[in-house]
């Protein structure tokens, strides 16, 4: 079970760097990430459910990248685990890895929403 270190759930310095210190761009990025990841996650869950590992890996790759850019380090790490399992064709422990990624993503989204509020 991953720990909920606030710094890894959302590394604010990373997010500020991505936004170049511009608060309005930061809020735009938060909005983009929330909408985009919210649209992609069901595809990842469905691919995992159908054991479409290649497709699952590709979606996880995208979510890993955008999470890392947003400073959502815990989510980025969890998506990377899912991506690597997809690439390796590994199904053992897949359900747990996907659940961990989804939970980490939820925590990240919660922090981002509170930041934008």
């Amino acid at each position, binding site marked *: 079970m991953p720990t909920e270190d606030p710094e890894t759930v959302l590394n604010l310095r990373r997010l500020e*760097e*991505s*936004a170049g210190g511009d608060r309005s*761009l930061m809020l735009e*990025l938060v909005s983009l990430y929330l909408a*985009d990841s919210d649209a992609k996650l069901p595809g990842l869950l469905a691919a995992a459910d159908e054991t479409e590992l290649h497709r699952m890996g590709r979606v996880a790759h*995208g979510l890993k990248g*955008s999470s890392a*850019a*947003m400073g959502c380090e815990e989510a980025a790490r969890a998506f990377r685990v899912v991506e690597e399992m997809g690439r390796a064709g590994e199904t053992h422990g897949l359900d747990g890895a996907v659940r961990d990624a989804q939970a980490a993503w939820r925590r990240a989204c919660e922090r981002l929403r509170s930041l934008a509020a």
Partner: protein
Amino acid sequence: MRILIVDDDPVARRILEDAVGGLGHTVHVAHDGREAWDLLSHEPVDVLMTDWVMPEMDGLELCQRVRARTDAPFMYVMLVTERSTTDDVVDGIMAGANDFLTKPYERAELRARLHAAQRVVELERSLAERVHELESALSEVATLRRLLPICMYCHSIRNEKQVWDEIEEYLRDHANADCTHSICPTCYDHRVRPMLDEMKSEQKAS
């Protein structure tokens, strides 16, 4: 510089667009390799900054296609990707990439890498201009060499040693062609026939 950003991830695309645009460059954006490839057919671009893993056409294939264009001006290619193992770097460079920027990146690193890109783009542009100038000069030399000074009366030709050669001699020396003498129909009518007619007249008279 004119910079094309290619990324299927809206967050990554927006971050790069803002960072590159903020440095004063003209930014074009494409959502995947296919869209970028279409755009490159009509939009001049100095630097291509592309993600690797994308649907439709990935960054590696886009790189290879760009490098396969023989009639297009030089374009600097930077792969902007999470992939950064030695194998990835080798594959990227073999596909034609000039540089790598690993995600997530610091804006200072992006600025430095674009600075290096600008040096290479300017060098390539200057080189292309010099090559064009040299090609034009060579073309003029070739044209001048094709002009043969020929005597308008006897048709002798002045050779490269400034000596006048008879046309047969010149052709033998320069075109490796031996001449055999003959009479064309026009000269036959204008020169030979009058001579023959004159000879016949003289014979009749005698």
